[in-house]
């Protein structure tokens, strides 16, 4: 691992040193060009002096117009606006260019003499002249834009190299390196000729310009080739050679001036290359449908192109149309290129692809924000506002619109995959309150599916405690959560997007929330259980003891049975507090035993009829308790009032209903004449509460009370 890392690192260091050496060479070459110490520029359509070296400052003031250069031998050549042009490509035709190069050669010859005379015009319009001795150009006279272009060129080269060194076998990386190699070939010649003081030899300038074209043509070829092979290989690598073959010929036509003009010779092929690169990137976009990782890689390119071109428009329009600031030198335009280039590099490197959505959003909003201010400003000026007012007004309007639009886009672009938290919360607490573990797990899995919509979900693949994005955004690790296992989700949003850091954060938040709800629920349940225990103990210790005392005191009276029933009810209530559901069969067994022992005491025969194979029904403990009290009351009534010889209990259970029929003989009045006493009222009340009913009927010598309860 270490050696693998080290070797590319050393190679990169070596390349950086070579780059520095090349920069030094380029600077040395730039300093070899003739120099007067008088810097000229085009101001208001005229060639004027903008900066003078100290030694000459007394003889020629800054700001004056310059007319011509006269050599020691008397040759004179006017200094034209076109002579100061930074880039020969500004000329449309080759004859124009040839004339420019010839004039440059003439100036170069003059400036390489012992001395030269510069003719200028003073404020009153009189021609003045100053004798200048051309000398060695000092390093400090190289402007910042020179170093900027140097820097851009070699930074681009080193970026490409760093990716290539890590992935030498990858065709995309190889082609990218090739494009990186072209970067300095484009920028270094441009840096040299665009920062010349007045002139350099025409032939030298021409070859430098050709070198610049070579770099631009081949850079374009490499760019097309990249998108022909990355992320998907669209053609066999051998076919990529067609690109340099075609554009190499075209370049020759440009360099040797076979083409009719610059439009045909260089502008068209270079634009065509850019268009082809974009076309192939669109083809790639379509080919990578359902491949979130590769798409995100392409998105880096889209994003950087957007920012790069957005910036270009902002600067150009901002300076030329609206006059916010001066138009920067064309050398700076390479900066936009570097930006786009950086995007491709990040895409190739697959850097932070999973957070692309957010990056894209930020970049996009940044460009949109800046451009909308400019557009509004232009519009307001067009409608007659002054520049000073219009900028303020457009900032205000853009600000008003910007934030709602920003928010809306955030929801659409970045947040669309994230369900609203407030809708998740009830779902989450429902999971936490699910009683069984397996059910809880099932619902949690469904919940994760709902939130992230992954194509694949595996349990316990790795037992990370932390959530995180893995496999460059293909996978999301959901940590263990309370008693729920860890999960690994793959292919977010049905495979159309990558997991992002936001997803990981959401997973963490959901997990924490879930844990808290579960903990809350557990402690609530513990509290309930403790409270039940306390109530049970209080009932047992206080009421039970008092009732027992009462039973002792009432011994021998008829009321003692009421107290005894109360004691039994108390037992039932305490048992019901236990809150464990009871099997109906067990409940029936308890009731049967109690009835049995009570009938025993009064010497009455109990016939308990109950099907052996009753369905397995579970009664909530409260229902069991209430039915128990009701049945107890019914038996008490029968034993107390009728003094029966026999009591018959018929139990019928179906899946939906429980019916208990208590029938006894003995002495009883017609039920129609019964006054509802406390006991009967109590029975009716409880049956009502259970949603059941009580039915009383009698035939000649028997009375029947039927309790019916639904079991659903």
């Amino acid at each position, binding site marked *: 691992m270490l050696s693998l890392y080290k070797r590319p690192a050393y190679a990169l260091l070596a390349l950086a040193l070579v780059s520095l050496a090349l920069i030094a060479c380029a600077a040395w070459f730039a300093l070899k060009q003739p120099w007067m110490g008088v810097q000229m520029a085009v101001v208001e359509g005229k060639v004027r002096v903008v900066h003078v070296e100290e030694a000459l400052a007394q003889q020629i003031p800054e700001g004056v117009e310059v007319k011509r250069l006269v050599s020691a031998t008397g040759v004179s050549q006017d200094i034209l606006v076109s002579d100061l042009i930074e880039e020969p490509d500004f000329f449309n035709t080759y004859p124009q260019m040839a004339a420019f190069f010839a004039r440059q050669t003439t100036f170069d010859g003059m400036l390489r003499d012992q001395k030269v005379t510069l003719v200028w015009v003073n404020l009153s319009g009189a021609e003045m002249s100053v004798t200048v001795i051309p000398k060695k150009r000092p390093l400090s006279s190289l402007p910042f834009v020179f170093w900027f272009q140097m820097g851009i060129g070699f930074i681009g080269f080193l970026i490409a190299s760093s990716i290539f060194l890590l992935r030498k076998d990858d065709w995309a990386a190889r082609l990218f390196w090739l494009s990186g190699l072209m970067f300095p070939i484009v920028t270094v010649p441009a840096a040299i000729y665009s920062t010349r003081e007045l002139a350099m030899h025409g032939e030298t300038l021409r070859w430098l310009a050709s070198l610049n074209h070579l770099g631009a043509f081949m850079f374009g070829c490499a760019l097309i080739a990249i998108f022909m092979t990355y992320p998907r290989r669209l053609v066999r690598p051998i076919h990529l050679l067609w690109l340099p073959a075609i554009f190499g010929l075209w370049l020759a036509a440009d360099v040797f001036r076979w083409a009719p003009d610059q439009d045909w010779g260089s502008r068209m092929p270079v634009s065509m290359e850019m268009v082809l690169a974009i076309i192939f990137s669109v083809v790639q976009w379509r080919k990578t449908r359902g491949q979130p990782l590769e798409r995100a890689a392409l998105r880096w390119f889209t994003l950087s192109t957007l920012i790069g071109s957005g910036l270009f428009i902002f600067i150009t329009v901002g300076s030329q149309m609206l006059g916010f600031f001066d138009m920067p030198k064309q050398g700076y335009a390479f900066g936009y290129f570097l930006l786009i280039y950086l995007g491709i590099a990040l895409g190739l490197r697959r850097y932070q692809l999973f957070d692309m959505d957010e990056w894209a959003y930020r970049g996009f909003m940044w460009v949109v924000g800046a451009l909308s201010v400019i557009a509004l400003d232009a519009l307001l000026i067009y409608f007659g506002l002054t520049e000073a007012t219009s900028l303020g007004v457009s900032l205000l309007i853009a600000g008003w619109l910007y934030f709602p639009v920003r928010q809306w886009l955030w929801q659409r672009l970045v947040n669309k995959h994230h369900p609203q938290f407030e809708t998740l919360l009830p779902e989450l607490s429902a999971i936490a309150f699910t009683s069984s573990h397996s059910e809880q797990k099932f619902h949690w899995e469904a919940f994760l599916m709902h939130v992230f919509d992954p194509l694949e979900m595996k349990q316990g693949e790795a037992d990370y405690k932390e959530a995180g994005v893995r496999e460059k955004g293909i996978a999301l690790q959901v940590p263990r959560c309370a008693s729920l296992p860890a999960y690994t989700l793959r292919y977010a949003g049905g495979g159309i997007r990558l997991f992002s850091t936001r997803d990981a954060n959401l997973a963490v938040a959901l997990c924490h929330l879930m844990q808290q709800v579960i903990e809350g629920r557990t402690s609530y349940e513990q509290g309930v259980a403790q409270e039940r225990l306390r109530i049970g103990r209080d009932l047992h210790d206080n009421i039970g003891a008092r009732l027992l005392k009462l039973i002792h005191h009432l011994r021998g009276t008829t009321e003692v049975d009421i107290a005894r029933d109360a004691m039994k009810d108390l037992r039932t209530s305490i048992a019901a507090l236990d809150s464990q559901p009871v099997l109906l069969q067990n409940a029936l067994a308890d009731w*049967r035993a109690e009835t049995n022992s009570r009938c025993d005491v009064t010497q009455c025969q109990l016939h*308990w009829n109950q099907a052996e194979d009753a369905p397995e029904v579970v009664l909530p403990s409260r229902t069991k308790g209430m039915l128990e009290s009701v049945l107890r009351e019914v038996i008490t009534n029968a034993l107390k009032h009728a003094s029966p010889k026999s009591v018959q209990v018929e139990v019928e259970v179906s899946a939906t209903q429980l019916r208990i029929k208590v029938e006894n003989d003995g002495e009883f009045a017609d039920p129609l004449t019964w006054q509802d006493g406390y006991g009967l009222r109590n029975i009716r009340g409880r049956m009502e509460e259970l949603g059941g009913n009580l039915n009383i009927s009698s035939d000649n010598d028997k009375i029947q009370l039927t309790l019916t309860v639904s079991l659903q």
Partner: protein
Amino acid sequence: MKVALILEDMPESQELLREIAQTAYPDIRVRFESSIAGALSIITQFQFDLALIDLSLPDGDGVTVVDAMASRFPASMIVVATIFDDDNHLFPALRAGAQGYLLKDQAPEQLVKQLRGISEGHPPLSPAIARRLLDHFHVDSPLRKAEGELEYVQLSPREREVLVHLARGISIVDIGVEIGISRHTVGDHVKNIYRKLNITSRAEAAIRAKGMGLV
């Protein structure tokens, strides 16, 4: 039956239990204790043939005394007198060596009858406790498996049958009718079940003691 210990903190209940004990065994002498501490100390000084022990006492759980009595006087009759007959209350006492239980809110005549029944080997067994016993003796229960090498007592098929019937709430008399044996035989089975329950707990206690390095 010569001497009875009545462990009970409520005076009325003390009186009731004395009455029951003396009705069942007219010549019996009675010693009252109203706390666990008192009971534990008195049994080191005197021997008791019968003990009626309340489970909820001001200074603790009566099961402690049941346990101490059972190991000290294996031949004595230990009966729990309580107002709660659920398995949670009674099962620990039965495992500790109680041979039966009385519900103090019942009519005294009935209690006398039940006490005599216990001494004759027909202790009551509520369905809830019978169910718990079935679980306890269930060969395949996880609890059993966990105890692994522990030597425990299995129920005979007949005892099992009786227990199943008891768990369904069927009275001893009706069980006799149903499976065609006399009510006394049913009672004997119940008595054996009690005994085995207690033996099991002894065996477990011995193994635990061994495990703790006490033996």
